[in-house]
């Protein structure tokens, strides 16, 4: 019993050691990006590129004392819109008069999780400062996050020297090929009218179909679901029960290395046939599916294929 009080101290040292390995100036820059993202209001146009595809979208962010509200509108293809606030994300698809609402039972407060994130990051990525480059008219500090293994992508970030706002971000695979790029082509930081982040569609209109999704914290390990191992650097950041579309009681475990996240969904088949086993991909997102007894496992992550596969295959059920 006498040694017990020492443990919390040792645990505190782990992120500290990891931080010590990283370039402190680069880590400060990361911190600057996080706080800029929290504080700034802006409106801008950005391109999103993955593989041969390039798409343009508009993003509007309004911050006041009560928090942030953001709106994302693709400028190409069918009209769609995402409005995100502290406790929910609403995805409007006017083409089918559908709004998908993702509610969070416990609103996440970013400041509270930040120090942990930054510590985690440094144990999975080598963070370093690059040159200053000009992007969309902004002088930007380049930051490099090199992954320490092949279970995650590398990242190159361009942050506005003055505000810390992230102007461009690119993810790389193990061959250093870009898998995804976000880049503002036009950006106005500063005052934004609150009206600009309101949804453009009145989903209360009775003709709209509302697909509501609610998650409740729940211990899946108590229910017998465990991950027998996880790739180095990934730890559990959330565990809940939720609905996915019309499927209810779906177990959801979230793992993260501080930058990339992987979700494990465990769904009772409940008499339905199992779906196809394997991998699908879009840009950096990989989805791996498999069957485990009478359950269906879907693993989704912005990580390389191998990573989602290893995590999917680590799911086990032990009768509690």
């Amino acid at each position, binding site marked *: 019993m006498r040694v017990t009080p020492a443990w919390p101290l040792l645990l505190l040292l782990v992120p500290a050691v990891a931080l010590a390995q990283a370039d402190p100036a680069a880590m400060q820059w990361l911190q600057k990006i996080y706080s800029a993202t929290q504080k700034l209001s802006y409106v801008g146009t950005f391109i999103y590129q993955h593989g041969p595809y*390039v798409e343009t979208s508009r993003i509007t962010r309004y911050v006041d004392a009560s928090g942030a509200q953001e709106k994302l509108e693709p400028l190409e*293809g069918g009209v769609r819109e995402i409005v995100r606030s502290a406790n929910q994300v609403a995805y409007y698809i006017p*083409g089918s008069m559908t709004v998908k609402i993702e509610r969070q039972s416990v609103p996440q407060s970013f400041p509270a999780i930040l120090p942990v994130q930054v510590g985690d990051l440094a144990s999975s990525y080598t963070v370093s400062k690059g040159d200053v480059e000009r992007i969309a008219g902004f002088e930007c500090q380049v930051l490099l996050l090199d992954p320490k293994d092949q279970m995650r992508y590398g990242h190159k970030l361009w942050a506005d020297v003055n505000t810390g706002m992230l102007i461009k971000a690119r993810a790389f695979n193990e061959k250093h090929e870009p898998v995804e790029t976000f880049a503002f082509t036009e950006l106005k930081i500063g005052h934004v009218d609150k009206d600009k982040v309101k949804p453009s569609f009145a989903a209360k209109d009775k003709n709209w179909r509302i697909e509501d999704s609610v998650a409740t914290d729940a211990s899946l390990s108590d229910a017998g679901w465990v991950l027998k191992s996880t790739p180095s650097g990934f730890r559990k950041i959330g565990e809940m029960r*939720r609905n996915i579309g019309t499927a209810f009681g779906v177990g959801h475990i979230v793992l993260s290395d501080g930058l990339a996240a992987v979700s494990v969904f465990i769904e009772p088949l409940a008499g339905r046939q199992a779906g196809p086993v394997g*991998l699908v991909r879009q840009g950096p*997102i990989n989805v791996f599916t498999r069957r485990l007894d009478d359950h269906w496992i879907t693993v989704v992550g912005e990580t390389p294929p191998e990573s989602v596969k290893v995590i999917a295959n680590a799911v086990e059920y032990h009768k509690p």
Partner: protein
Amino acid sequence: MTEHISALLDGELSDQDGLRQLEVLRSDEACRRTWATYHLIGDALRGDVQAGCARAVSLRLAEEPVVLCPTVTQRARRERTWYAVSAAAGFAAVAFVAWTAVPMLAARPDAQVASRDAATANVAPALAGAPAPVLASTTAPGTATVTPAGAAQIPAPDVENYLLAHQQFSPANAMQGVAPYVRLVSETAESGR
């Protein structure tokens, strides 16, 4: 011409242009074949095709008029399917066709229903601009391609739901705000035109 057929499949043409295109299909056999091929590819990608089907379809084409009835709605166009990732990049068209002849892993019944109206919409855009029935455009870098081993097909609305549930937990949001949600609304299949 193929892009008009693709647009017709997508339900993108105005009523007037649609009628004109249907008229072209009635009179031009090559166009009719392309139309049928697009549908066949849609069926194959969906896993609705059994071995020997291509021959059966050809035989039936020879004796039956093709039903010219574009039913793809605006909504269906939005719903794309995420196709399986090929282990080997640059999968050849021949290999693709050979594989689709093999019965695919059955999708969940509800999933099949969900993807039914979507598949035709997915296929045509990927092919538009390429001489029919070449499938080379489906193997363009960054495009998901189809593989015979461990092939998966998940209807886009399903992936969308998982992604929506997942995205809020990504620490990248703390750096990029709502921007990463663009992955959800990205219309990859169509931008490949």
